C-alpha cells in the first residue's frame, strides 16, 4: 500500500499541535435549541467521536465546525485562530458528507482533485493518483459517481476530503448507508488511515459500537449537551449518567438509597447503598450521586447467576429469590431475564463457555456481581434515558 507522501503547502499548516477548541458553542433555531453551550477540546491527531441519538445536535455541531452553519454564540478555535465566522472555503477543515455529495457531473479523478484545483495546488495529477491508490480506486478514476457502488462512493468521498490534508477531517455518519460487513471493513480502514496520516478526525455517529471501535475519545451528546466524554472503556465501564449507561451497551438500573460510606475489601473507599433489602458496596470513584436515592447500575455481562443456594464467585451479599423468566440463546452467549422479588427483570448475559448447562425458564437463582463493576447514578435521572427504541 503506497504511503501518502506528506506534501505540505508552504505556510499552510502551522507547525506544532493545533487543537480544535469549542467554547460555549450554541446554536438556536426558531423553534428549538440544537446545541447548548458546548465546551469541547479535541487534541490534534486524535480520533474523536461525537456519539448520540438523532436530533441530539451532533451534526449541527459538526456543521458549525465546517462553516456550513453559523453559531448563535460561542467560539470555535483552531489553536489560537478564531474561525467561528469564517467561510467554509477559508477553513483548513474538510467534510465527508453523509450522502457523500459527490459531484455527479465530474468523474472520480476530478471529484478528488476538486479541492486541490480550487487552491491551485501543484502536481495535482500525482497527488490524486496517490490518494486513489490509498483508497484502492485507481482503476475507477475516469468513471462517474453514479457508476460506482455505495462502498466505492464512500471511499471517494473520503479521498476527496483527505487529499487536502485538512487540520480537522469531519465525518458526518459516513457509514450509515453501508451494509454491516462493509461498514465493519470501512471502520477498520478509516481508523487505519487516520493512524497513518495523523490528522485529527471528528466522527459523528449514532452507532455506539462504531464509536467504541474507532475512537480514542468519545463525547456522548444528548439534547444539545455533552453528557460525558472520555475513552471508550472509561465511558462504558463507568458511566456518569443514566443516558450514557443506557446508550452505550445496556445496563441494569436498580433503585436504592445511600446509607453511608465505608472502606471496602481492598481498602478503597466505598459507598454503601441499601438496595431492595440488600446492602451493596460501590467504589467511591464510581458513585455519581451524593446522598439520598440513587440508581445502582451493573452491566448485564457482569451479573453472575447461580442456581439457588449454590456459590457465586463474588464477595459480599447475594440477592436471592430470582426466577429465570426468559432465555435467549444467541450463539456466542445466552441472555437471561431474571425476575427479582421486587418485580424488576434484570438482564444477565453469560458467555457460552460450556462450563455449565443453560438454565431453563422457571429456575430459581441467586444473583450477584463483583462490587468493582457496579456504579451509582443520580436518582433524579430518567432510568429509561438513552434506551434505543427499536
Amino acid at each position: 500500500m503506497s504511503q501518502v507522501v506528506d506534501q505540505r503547502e508552504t505556510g499552510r499548516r502551522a507547525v506544532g499541535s493545533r487543537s480544535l477548541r469549542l467554547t460555549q458553542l450554541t446554536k438556536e433555531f426558531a423553534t428549538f435549541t440544537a446545541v447548548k453551550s458546548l465546551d469541547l477540546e479535541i487534541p490534534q491527531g486524535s480520533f474523536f467521536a461525537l456519539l448520540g441519538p438523532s436530533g441530539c445536535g451532533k451534526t449541527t455541531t459538526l456543521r458549525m465546525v465546517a462553516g456550513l452553519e453559523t453559531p448563535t454564540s460561542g467560539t470555535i478555535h483552531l489553536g489560537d485562530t478564531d474561525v467561528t465566522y469564517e467561510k467554509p472555503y477559508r477553513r483548513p477543515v474538510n467534510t465527508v458528507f453523509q450522502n457523500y455529495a459527490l459531484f455527479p457531473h465530474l468523474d472520480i479523478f476530478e471529484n478528488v482533485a476538486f479541492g486541490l484545483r480550487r487552491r491551485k495546488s501543484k502536481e495535482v495529477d500525482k497527488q490524486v493518483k496517490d490518494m486513489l491508490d490509498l483508497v484502492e480506486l485507481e482503476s475507477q478514476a475516469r468513471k462517474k459517481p453514479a457508476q460506482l457502488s455505495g462502498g466505492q462512493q464512500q471511499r471517494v468521498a473520503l479521498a476527496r476530503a483527505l487529499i487536502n490534508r485538512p487540520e480537522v477531517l469531519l465525518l458526518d455518519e459516513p457509514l450509515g448507508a453501508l451494509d454491516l460487513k462493509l461498514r465493519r471493513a470501512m471502520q477498520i480502514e478509516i481508523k487505519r488511515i487516520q493512524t497513518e496520516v495523523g490528522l485529527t478526525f471528528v466522527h459523528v455517529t449514532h452507532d455506539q459500537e462504531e464509536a467504541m471501535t474507532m475512537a480514542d475519545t468519545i463525547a456522548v451528546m444528548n439534547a444539545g449537551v455533552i453528557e460525558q466524554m472520555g475513552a471508550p472503556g472509561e465511558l462504558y465501564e463507568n458511566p456518569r449518567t443514566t443516558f450514557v449507561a443506557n446508550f452505550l451497551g445496556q445496563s441494569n438500573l436498580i433503585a436504592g438509597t445511600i446509607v453511608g460510606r465505608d472502606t471496602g475489601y481492598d481498602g478503597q473507599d466505598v459507598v454503601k447503598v441499601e438496595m431492595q433489602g440488600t446492602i451493596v458496596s460501590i467504589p467511591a470513584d464510581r458513585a455519581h450521586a451524593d446522598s439520598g436515592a440513587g440508581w445502582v447500575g451493573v452491566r448485564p455481562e457482569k451479573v453472575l447467576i447461580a442456581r439457588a443456594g449454590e456459590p457465586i464467585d463474588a464477595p459480599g451479599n447475594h440477592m436471592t429469590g430470582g426466577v429465570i423468566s426468559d432465555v435467549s440463546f444467541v450463539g456466542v452467549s445466552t441472555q437471561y431475564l431474571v425476575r427479582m422479588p421486587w418485580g424488576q427483570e434484570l438482564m444477565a448475559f453469560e458467555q457460552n463457555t460450556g462450563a455449565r448447562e443453560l438454565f431453563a425458564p422457571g429456575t430459581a437463582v441467586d444473583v450477584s456481581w463483583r462490587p468493582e463493576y457496579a456504579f451509582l447514578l443520580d436518582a433524579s435521572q430518567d432510568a429509561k434515558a438513552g434506551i434505543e427504541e427499536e
Partner: protein
Amino acid sequence: MSTVTEGTVADGTAPASTVAPSTRSPLQRLRGWVSKHLVMGLGALILVYMFVPIAVVVMMSFNDNSKSRNVYAFKHFTLDNWTHPCKPNGMCDAVVKSVEIGLLATLVATIIGTLAAFALVRHRFAGRSFANLIIFLPMASPEIVMGSSLLALFVSSGFGGRLGFWTIFIAHVMFCLSFVIVTVKARLGGLDDNLEQAAMDLYATESQTFWRVTFPLVLPGVMAAALLSFSLSFDDFIITNLNAGQNVTFPMFVWGAAQRGVPMQVNVIGTVMFVVAIALVLGGEARNRRQARALAR
C-alpha cells in the same frame, strides 16, 4: 402447470386462482394475454394516432399539386418542393421573421425565467404562492383572451397604430415565461443542495460554486426550457395574429394561404422543424439519461 401469479397483478390481470387448473384452454390463455397487454396495446395505438398527421405532413412535402392548387390531396410525387423551398411568395420571409422573433424571445424568456426559477426554489420572499399562481395562469388561459387583452393594452396606451415586431416579441416572452420557469424549477428542485455545501467545504467560493457545480447541473433544464420556448414562439398563431400589425410570421402565412391554396413547401418547413427538434431532443435526452442517473439521490 399451476402457477401462483406473482407480479402480474401490476399488469391488470386478475390474480389467477391459487388453486389453478393444470391447463388453461386456448380461449382462456388468449383472454389472459389480451388483458395483460391491453393497456400497452391501446397506448401504442394512441401513440400511432398522434403521429398520423405528421406522416401526412412529411408525405405532402413530396406532393406536386401544381395542377390543382385548391385541392388538398396527394397528386404526384416530386422533389421540387425540397429543391425550391422558397418558391412561394413571402413564405421564406415569414419563416425568417418567425425565427428572428423566436430566437430573441427565447433568449429573453430563458434568462429571466431561469432567474425567477432560482428565486422560487432557492430564496425566500413573501407572496410565493401568489407568484406561483401568476406563473401558472398563462399556461391555462385561452390564447384568444391573452391576445385580445394584450391588444387592448396596446391600443389603450396609444400603440394601436404601431403593432409589429416588438409587440409580437413582448407577447411571446410573456407566454413562454411560464413554461421556462416550470421547466427550470423542476430541474433545480431535483438538485441536492449538499453538493453546493460540499463545493464550499472544498475551498470553492460562492461564485466558483455556482459556475462549477450549480450551473452545469441545471443547464440541461435550461436547454430544455429554451427549446420549448422556441417551439411555442415559432408556432404561435392566435396571439401573434392579433398583435402583428403588418408583420407576417410563418403561422400567419399558412393561415392566409389556407384560403387560397396552401403551397406544399409549407409541409417542407413543417417536416424540417419536426426533424430538427427531434434531433435536438434526442441528443439532449441521451445526455440527460446519464445526468439523471447521477442525480438520483
